[in-house]
């Protein structure tokens, strides 16, 4: 290696101090420093002052936790009003549109009487496994309905569990207020105003009929421990039949449910999976669970090809069901 191509001033040569470099001296000094660190770490107090470079720094994670910064973002959640139980989401599809990995899937709610769309989501599915925590959805939401959660302990041995729906997405506004007070106080007023407007346009229970909600505006206990927030929702009674429980049997349950919806939509559309249609028409939604195998056998004829090949079976069915439902709504 030669330095001819370098200018003289390009090279920085460290001048060594002779006195520090006598044989053995540096070693003795170094051993002394290390021993001092050992003594301080073992007998000194745990170090809380970050400016001090000696002492015990470790945070004993499961028991001790560092306070999360307010703007920390992990996974998206949906908010609902503590007092009324109404969700803030109006199914405006802004988040679904902006989501870079396209993991948000919304179905708009409809007035059963008139069939007209209502500013509320009938279904809201989010794939946590593919979500990249970019926070665009929370950024773009005009109604401040979708926010980023601080809970990061989401690991599971059951992969389909990471496709979450309303049951695991909903959090009360008071919970979000505890984890991000200033960020919420900035938007609180307008968000609540918009919600009040939307509630007026929601007939019946639409907009507050998902999962378990605490009514009456009591401060939510779940706010203290985010992980516990989802637990009561899973165990409680469900307002409507086919809402899936979270747990081991979830994927099976959900598949059946989604297939049933898909079959019903297909029947409404009148085309596509023609042989599945009569079954779906004859049976009510709850009984369509029994028809699931038949629907599954018909599935490949649908728009499956458009969906990625490496998707799991139930996810593919689910996505297909949602798309079919949307297509039906658009009146194809």
């Amino acid at each position, binding site marked *: 290696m030669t330095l001819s191509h370098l200018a003289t001033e390009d090279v920085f040569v460290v001048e060594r101090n002779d006195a520090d*470099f006598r*044989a053995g001296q540096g*070693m003795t000094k170094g051993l002394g420093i*290390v021993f001092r*660190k050992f003594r301080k770490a073992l007998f000194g107090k745990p170090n809380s002052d970050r400016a001090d470079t*000696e002492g*015990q*720094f470790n945070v004993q994670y499961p028991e001790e936790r560092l306070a999360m910064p307010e703007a920390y973002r992990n996974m998206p959640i949906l908010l609902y009003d503590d007092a009324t139980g109404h969700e803030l989401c109006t199914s405006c599809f802004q988040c679904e549109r902006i989501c870079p990995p396209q993991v948000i899937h919304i179905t708009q709610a409809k007035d059963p009487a008139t069939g007209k769309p209502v500013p509320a989501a009938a279904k809201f599915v989010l794939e946590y496994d593919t979500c990249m925590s970019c926070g665009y959805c929370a950024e773009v939401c005009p109604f401040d309905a979708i926010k980023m959660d601080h809970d990061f302990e989401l690991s599971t041995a059951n992969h389909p569990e990471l496709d979450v729906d309303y049951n695991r997405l909903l959090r009360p506004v008071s919970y979000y207020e505890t984890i991000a007070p200033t960020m919420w106080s900035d938007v609180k007023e307008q968000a609540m105003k918009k919600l009040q407007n939307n509630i007026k346009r929601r007939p019946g229970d639409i907009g507050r009929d998902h999962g378990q909600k605490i009514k009456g505006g009591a401060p939510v206990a779940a706010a203290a421990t985010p992980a516990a927030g989802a637990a009561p929702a899973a165990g409680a009674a469900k307002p409507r039949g086919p809402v899936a429980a979270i747990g081991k049997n979830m994927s099976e349950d959900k598949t059946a449910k989604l297939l049933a919806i898909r079959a019903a939509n297909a029947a409404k559309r009148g085309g596509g999976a023609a042989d599945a249609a009569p079954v779906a028409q004859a049976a009510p939604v709850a009984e369509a669970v029994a028809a699931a195998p038949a629907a599954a056998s018909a599935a490949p004829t649908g728009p499956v090809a458009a969906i990625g090949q490496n998707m799991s079976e139930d996810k593919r069915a689910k996505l297909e069901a949602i798309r079919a439902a949307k297509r039906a709504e658009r009146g194809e």
Partner: protein
Amino acid sequence: MADALTQLGFASWLSVLIASIIKVTLILVGGSVGMMFLTWYERRSISYMQDRRGPNRVGPQGLLQPISEAIKTMTKEDATPRDADKIVHFLAPVVMLGATVLSFAVIPWGRMFPVDLNAAVLFVIATGGLHSIGMMMAGWGSNNKFALLGGMRGVAQLISYEIPQVMAIIPVVLMTGSMSLQKIVEAQNDFAGLGWYVFSPVGLLGFALFFTASLAEGERTPFDIPEADSEIIAGYMTEYSGMKFAVFYLSNYMSNLAVCFVTATLYLGGGNGPGVDALGGIAGGLLSLVYFLLKSFALFFVMVLIRATVPRLRVDQLMSFAWKFLLPLVLVNILSASFWVALLRWDQQWPQLTEWFGAPSTADATNWGRLAIAIVLTLLINAGAVALIMRLTNRNVQKHLYTTDEELALGLS
């Protein structure tokens, strides 16, 4: 123990057999438990040196961590490379562990001696030398260039550091007049159990030199060149996994334990200490064991401290350290040890000196005047030698740092 069994009515050969089996079992159990404790001890103390906490989850203060690691290692896949020499590859860890366990045959635990071999000191060194065979087998049998490099480096290192190691023991052997570890421990029992060799100038220098050479023999940092993981993956252990790797690990830590035990026995008085003789019997034996373990683990702490401080040497630095630094000092130490012995015990060692210079004034009691002379003389010799070597080394270092103008002008140095 064999005598007691014979009195119980066993045949003499049977009682010898039973006693041997019991001893071997105790040594193996003690060695492995000691090794497990050592891994925990090293990880905890080096963590605190680096402002961390180290393993503290499994069991109280993480004491059961080695057991969980052992279970983990045993459940791992035991892979052998396709083109490896299967038998040699398999035998290498066995040879390594066998050599280590052999050295435990003579190493005392406090005042308990499994076997009092006549040449016990040499035996420990010789079994340490057997490690080089295991290393060579592992390096060659793996059919991997990194393994071979590590094996060759390790063997070269072990062979060169064996010389200063053996010669650093010679002063102790001279001062004791025997190579039996038991006699060496007995000889350090003066002054109420505090007559350790390390308190004499000869023993102090010998201790430092022997411990340094032993670090190299045990491949401890800064001499961990055979398994330098940033250069040659894991050296001769590269192609080992699962239980075979665990056996290498076991052998490494057991030999580190052996090094601590031997150093404590040779220079720090073994199980001697104040109160051992006064208590006597089983209580005294237990106290000596406690003293012994304390000394050994303090030595191991120094090893860990060095590991946390000093970076790895280069191969040429390793060799020049052995031949240019350790070896001259060791030779000087032997010289001053002979002065020491001549001054303190010429009546026992060299009767002809008594003829020439007259009999020493008192035969049995400590002769303080002669002791003082011996201390001053050996201190002068040793300190002078150390100062000289340090100065020469320093000049060498500076010569390598700064090249003189003439050398630069010539482009040579």
